[in-house]
């Protein structure tokens, strides 16, 4: 019985680790065309301060792609970032040069993980405002999306 408990515990740990990825393999109900960006939003911030933007990117193509850059006039610097746990309970943030977008899957930019870092926003972003963000891909055409600001 003791061994079974240990086994279950280790299995749970293993499943926990497997769930770490921000990429989801899709099955049923996954349909669309090309590379689609949805559910975008960003944090409010006053002029000169920091904000972060989030969204989901789905790659419906039969071939893999990559997000290789982001651009916007809403901030002095716009970077692809990820927050990560450096060691027990200690969080850090680092720049990610490109993000893999495997075929038929969705990549989640979300709080505590991948995010678009907006360093020194050029105007105050209040709840309800919007701004444009351009995403560059390795194999697909660039896309400009509208990002609403919300709390």
């Amino acid at each position, binding site marked *: 019985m003791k061994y079974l408990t240990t086994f279950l515990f280790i299995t*749970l*740990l293993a*499943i*926990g680790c497997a*769930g*770490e990825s921000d990429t989801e393999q899709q099955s049923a109900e996954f349909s669309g065309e090309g590379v689609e960006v949805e559910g975008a939003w960003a*944090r*409010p*911030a*006053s002029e000169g*301060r*920091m*904000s*972060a933007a989030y969204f989901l990117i789905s790659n419906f193509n039969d071939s893999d792609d990559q997000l290789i850059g982001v651009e916007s006039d809403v901030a*002095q*610097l716009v970077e692809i*970032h990820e*927050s990560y*746990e*450096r060691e027990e*309970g*200690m*969080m*850090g*943030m*680092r*720049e990610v040069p490109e993000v893999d977008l495997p075929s038929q899957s969705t990549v989640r930019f979300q*709080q*505590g993980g991948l*995010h678009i*870092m*907006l*360093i*020194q926003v050029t105007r105050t972003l*209040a*709840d309800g405002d919007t701004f444009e963000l351009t995403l560059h891909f390795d194999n697909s055409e660039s896309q400009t999306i509208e990002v609403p600001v919300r*709390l």
Partner: protein
Amino acid sequence: MKIKNLFYIAILISTLFMLQACSSPALDDYSDVQFELTDQNGELVTFPDDFEGSPVVMGFIYTHCPDICSFITSNVKKVYEEIDNPSDTKFLLVTFDPERDTPEVLKNYAQAFDMDREPFHFLTGDSETIDRFMERVSVRVQESYSREVESGDRMYFLNHTDKILLINKNSELIFDYGGSMTPVNIITEDLQKLL
């Protein structure tokens, strides 16, 4: 992802039961310390004296961090929004970057989150006081990378402990949570027991 969350919840619940089994649930007692801090309005505040008699939810942030720290700040706000009778509880967000997070900067930050109002308090202080405070609450901070911005200034970022603390009316530390990782309802349920 969901299974991972369930796993965290399971661990938290078992920790809860373990803690309840102990006769003394306090993890620390802050009643014998005094930290002179300044809030977003420039008013002097003493922790924990000025908050004694109220439960306290306290998060640690720096405002140059829009992801994890915004997550912590909005989690603190969500705890406030979700509890039944929040009026008695104080909600504190303390910066570990006092050089840049002046009262004015904290006020702007609070306004962006619609939290520049009671019962929220954004606190900073002199570097020496903040260092001692962070040491006491076991928040570790280290400089990570930096960027040169248009003005030619160097902007630095920090690695830091991610936590929210729950403190009772007697300034005793009752729970210590992962600030951005812990589901808000777990903090809310623990807080409800202190009201």
